[in-house]
């Protein structure tokens, strides 16, 4: 068992899936000899050859559409989009085709593809490189949306995504690619695709996060603990379908919650979480549901990025305010 970074565990899961199943293909821009701009596909070309690892021309729309055709033919394409800011040309193929090929043909054809990409900010990247597109995808029936927040969860969730018979959007938090190392066993064990992870129990308040915000929420919980506030942390991990049962169970216990979202506030995934609690957990609430998310502005250029992103300090402050509500 090795201590791996998140990007290494993505690489490990890809290699594992390819070794296990000859139908699994990797394709995308620079995924071959370059090993991907973040090295997520490093070594795969050498190991599996150019018929399993395909460097594509520069065409995201095309990559998505190709994957639909490959998947309909029984392959399990795992396509990489270089940054989530370049996934928008794929939306038409994902919405109009990938997510509904099974529905349209009453199961005759299906689309077991994975579209994986780095997502989110925190790396002071140039414009268009810090997007959080999860909410768009989480509104598309027929799709699954998965966002791992640790190396081990990345491994297990990516294996599950690749094995799933339906299309999966797999968003890898760029800022976590090399942030921490974790022991990851290459045991081929997938994680469930519809289960949130309760990372830390908490009696007083529940912090709900996903992707790059999870470590911030955990840090905030530490801070709060030192102040005598017992905050629990949930990593949603699978954003579609969303495991509201876990969320509702935790929030029912604490009666208070902060939903942490990196994307601009309006219409983000946090709204769905809040709505789900408001519909089914209202009676247990001791304080208003709190969403912590940046304003409705475009992710700023790097110099102002820190002022844009939610962080542990802001999460802790929001939790304190929510605790203060009576």
């Amino acid at each position, binding site marked *: 068992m090795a201590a791996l970074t998140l990007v290494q565990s993505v690489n490990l899961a890809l290699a594992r899936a390819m070794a296990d199943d000859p139908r699994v*293909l990797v394709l995308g821009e620079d995924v071959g000899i370059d090993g991907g701009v973040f090295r997520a596909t490093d070594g795969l070309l050498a190991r599996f050859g150019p*018929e399993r690892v395909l460097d*594509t*021309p520069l*065409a995201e*729309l*095309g990559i*998505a*559409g*190709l*994957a*639909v*055709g*490959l*998947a*309909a*033919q*029984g*392959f399990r*394409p795992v396509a990489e989009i270089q940054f989530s800011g370049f996934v928008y040309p794929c939306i*038409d*193929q994902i919405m*109009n*085709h990938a997510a509904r090929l*099974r*529905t*349209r*043909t*009453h*199961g*005759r*054809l*299906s689309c077991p593809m994975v579209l994986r990409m780095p997502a989110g900010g925190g790396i002071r990247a140039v414009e268009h490189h810090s997007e959080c597109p999860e909410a768009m995808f989480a509104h598309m*029936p*027929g799709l699954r949306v998965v966002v791992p927040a640790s190396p081990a969860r990345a491994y297990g969730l990516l294996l599950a995504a690749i094995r*799933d*018979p*339906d299309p999966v959007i797999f968003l890898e938090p760029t800022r976590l690619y090399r942030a921490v190392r974790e022991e990851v066993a290459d045991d081929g064990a997938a994680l469930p695709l*519809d289960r949130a992870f309760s990372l830390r129990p908490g009696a007083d308040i529940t912090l709900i996060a996903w992707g790059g915000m999870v470590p911030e929420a955990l840090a905030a919980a530490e801070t709060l603990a030192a102040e005598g506030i017992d905050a629990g942390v949930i990593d949603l991990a699978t954003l579609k*379908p*969303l*495991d*509201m*049962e876990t969320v509702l169970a935790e929030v029912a216990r604490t009666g208070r919650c902060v939903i942490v979202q990196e994307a601009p506030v309006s219409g983000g995934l946090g709204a769905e979480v809040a709505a789900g609690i408001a519909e089914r957990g209202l009676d247990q609430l001791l304080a208003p549901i709190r969403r912590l998310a940046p304003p409705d502005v475009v992710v700023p250029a790097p110099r102002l990025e820190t002022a844009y992103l939610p962080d542990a300090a802001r999460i802790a402050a929001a939790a304190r305010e929510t605790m203060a509500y009576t």
Partner: protein
Amino acid sequence: MPATRIAARFEVRYTRLLDAEGKAAGPLPGFARDPAALVALYRAMVLTRTFDAKAIALQRTGRLGTYASSLGQEAVAVGAAAAMAPDDVLVPSFREHGAQLWRGVTLHELFLFWGGDERGNDFAGPREDFPISVPVGSHALHAAGVALAFKLRHEARAALCIFGDGATSKGDVAEAMNFAGVWTLPLVFVINNNGWAISVPRAAQSAAQTLAQKAVAAGIPGEQVDGNDVIAMRAATEAALAKARAGGGAHVIEALTYRLSDHTTADDASRYRSDAEVSQRWAEEPVARLRRHLEGAGLWDKAAEEALLHETAATVEEAASAYLATPAQAPDSMAAFTYAAWPAALAAQRAWFAPAPAGTEG
């Protein structure tokens, strides 16, 4: 080395084998000397046109949804499909009823689909063929994916993708052609250039002199074929598919034809084009052309024609009746194919499909 030199040269050829009178414009391909093969093409075009008329009639009386007629373009669809091997894969647009029928999609399935029932896409016959693509041009990429699958599995199969003149303006099509070129994919693109994209004439779609030359951008060969000449269509497609299956790569065929009908039953073409233009194009239409050819070759006569029309009408009527007698599915079927299995997390949502509570109304 001079300051300027030619770096590359291209040309686009045009082929017609039967003229508008059905006379051979030169030597015909082998299959055209086989009476059974010619009659099969003719029957398929007549069936397509009969289906078309019935579909329009059903739509006009509120028993079918908006429908896209293929009137006048039967040779494109039938000729191309007739060139396919059974295990090739068809990735069609929405005006290739003739191709779908040739491939084994049933009349009943076609009626169901156009009648608003997804079971019409669950083809019992060509299980790997794609359903029609309503978003124009977006399916060209699926065809590239399918062709790539064949290539990666080292199968001697090819994909055939059909779309309209309007579709050639879409970036999806350009990307698909580029993939097909750079990876030498076994993929034949057939452009049904019927002169119009709803109200937009071909000339307003692109300054390209031919649409076949879209292929040049992708480094693959492109040619024009008389799309009202089913023999030329089948011959050109056969050659392209054979080359593709043999590893020779992709090919573009621009079929020059004409949309004799409105765009769909929701359209009124008289708003944007003259009756005179349409009448004139009737002289070129493919069904009469092949009939004249068959007659000239002594393979067809009035009796054969009447028998065929009679038989075809009966077949189509029967399928229409069966369609009309097919009840809609239960609402819950909507969720049956969203995912391979409906997610447990969404279990409660299915209550939506329960029958409405009796005695209440809004």
